[in-house]
């Protein structure tokens, strides 16, 4: 029984009121998970991630007259997904490094969105630098601690998987962070993680960097997360949105497909 004068929470009802009232928008940053979603392409002799596949269990038929449902299969890193620190060797011994052990409050965080569309459009191998981020901060304010940095490139508009993966004989050509930016984001800005629209958080050519795959090696080595294959980043303000990113609670999971929601405020 709630006593008459007992204090009731007011923040959550006002949040819900703002969502239903339309002053807070809920934006879906997730790719639709289907069989055509491309997964990372690796040399064929290495272990391969399964693509998303769906087999019907029944559809109101002899296999289940009242039921429609499917069996699905895919790798943990398929479509819009969450990279946990255990995904990389540098994060393998960290505490709370897997999808089942990461503290749940980590899955709700502020997001900063940096628009790199014109740069990525001009150069698919475009690398986001410290200088670029500082310039962005001059216009939009410093990245607050425990924020995501999301790199907007409009790469998710490339529906054709050939253009999306953008492979040639020398590998993938997709934008990502410069190797110097990654430690700076961790040490100087204390980010939760890095998100982007391409198939992986690292640039397509990042395997050839001095520190290969820095956004995996360094971010995960410091217990930070990755959030690739996002969409709708054009609908977020540079600062001020909140994103919700809980992966499936897979025991010792290295990641999982995730429905990423963003809350943005009208003002």
């Amino acid at each position, binding site marked *: 029984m709630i006593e008459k004068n007992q204090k009731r929470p007011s923040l959550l009802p006002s949040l819900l009121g703002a969502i239903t009232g339309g002053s807070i928008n809920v934006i879906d940053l997730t790719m639709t998970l289907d069989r055509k979603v491309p997964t990372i392409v690796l040399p064929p002799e290495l272990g391969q991630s399964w693509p998303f596949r769906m087999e019907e269990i029944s559809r109101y038929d002899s296999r289940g007259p009242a039921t429609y449902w499917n069996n699905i299969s895919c790798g943990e890193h398929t479509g819009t997904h969450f990279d946990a620190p255990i995904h990389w060797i540098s994060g393998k011994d960290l505490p709370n490094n897997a999808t089942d052990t990461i503290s749940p409050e980590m899955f709700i965080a502020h997001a900063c969105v940096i628009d790199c569309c014109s740069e990525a459009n001009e150069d698919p191998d475009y690398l986001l630098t410290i200088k670029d981020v500082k310039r962005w901060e001059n216009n939009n304010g410093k990245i607050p601690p425990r924020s995501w940095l999301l790199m907007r490139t409009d790469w998710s508009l490339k529906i054709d998987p*050939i253009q999306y993966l953008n492979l040639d004989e020398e590998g993938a050509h997709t934008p990502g962070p410069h190797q110097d930016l990654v430690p700076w984001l961790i040490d100087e800005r204390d980010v939760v993680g890095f998100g982007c629209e391409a198939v992986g958080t690292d640039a397509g050519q990042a395997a050839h960097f001095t520190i290969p795959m820095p956004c995996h090696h360094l971010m995960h080595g410091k217990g930070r997360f990755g959030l690739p294959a996002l969409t709708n980043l054009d609908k977020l303000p540079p600062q001020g949105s909140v994103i919700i990113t809980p992966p499936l609670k897979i025991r010792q999971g290295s990641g999982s497909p995730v429905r990423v929601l963003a809350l943005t405020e009208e003002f």
Partner: protein
Amino acid sequence: MTTILPTPKKKDPIQRTRKPSMPPGNRSREAQGLAAMATSGRFALQVCNHCTKVQYPPRQVCSECLSDQLAWQDVRTGGKLLAETTLQHSNDVYFRDRLPWRLGIVVADAGPSIVAHLAEDCIQGKRVRMSLAIDRAGNAVVIAKPEKLSPGEEDDMQLREMAFDPKNRRVLIVNGKTELGYRLAEAFLKAGARNIFVGHAEPWRTSTHLEAIKKLDKTTIYPLDVTDTESVKELAAMIGDKVEIMVNNSYHLRMGGVLDRFDINTAHDEMEIHYHGLMRLAGFFGPVMRSRGADGHHGAAAWVNILSAYALVNNSALGTYSASQAAALSLSQCLRDELKNGGVRVVNSFIGPIEDEWHQLAPPPKLVPATIAKRIVEALKRGLEDVPIGAVAEEIIQRLAENPKEIERTIKL
């Protein structure tokens, strides 16, 4: 000269498609021996070990000396056409649909008189050459052609019932991203195929072979991923009723066995492509092919699987690959039985190591894809069912017949 095979017209949407029917069915267990010879392209009959008399039709004991020691032996193919007749009437549904039909009695050089289906140019009293074939019901029959090659004999509409000649037929090659895919397209074009449809998966992986296929005449490429049920379903919805010869050349080889490379994921990928892939293709293309088995002179005819000879006996260097191929082989036998009612035949070819990047370290002899393609087209023209291609496959089949335990213990890559 044989009457020229009519060029297929576009399908008349008003006419009902002729339903498949079968020539008379059941045969004795002994007659199945004849089927075994026919499916492997041999002209072999039972020969009495006791008195050497050549038997026809197959039987349990010698018609001369009653010995039960009858062995299958290759015999001379020549003979003389003693008598010929043309059926103008039949009470059998299958033959009624196909009248007139020519039959004859051939006195074989090997001894017996044999009732044979006749090629158009066979003349009574002249010499003929015989071969065994499989009819639409899956039974062995004898066919006779003039002794000397007759111009255009591959067009013979009566004998076309007993083979799966690609001429004027439309072919689907499942995987166009390998050299084998390209060579198959080339070989089917050369054999007079009407159209060639070629599948390709994972569009982001480029392939010089697919680029070469795009330049071939009468050839169209379509997205097709045998690991993806929807993809197979989509293509079957688009061209399923036009495929008359299916060529499943899906292929995913990774070296390793169970202990030396314990990896469920790789084994899963192999099963997805070889076993579930075949099942998906069969599930969506099989029913419509079966229903079109009698659709004119160019109806659905054959389903070709290119399997590894290691489907027959496991090679531990390719242990899980061999196992997935064995699963595909078993499923193909199921498919063979189910397609039989439509008169569509499953042709399994067995190959050894081929010249490709996955067999880089395998010692020669290795098959070149052009040879495989050529042999498959030949097998279809001859109506064969189980086709070893290359020295490795031939040796495996021979040694399995002689002593399965011996090859199981000694097989190496």
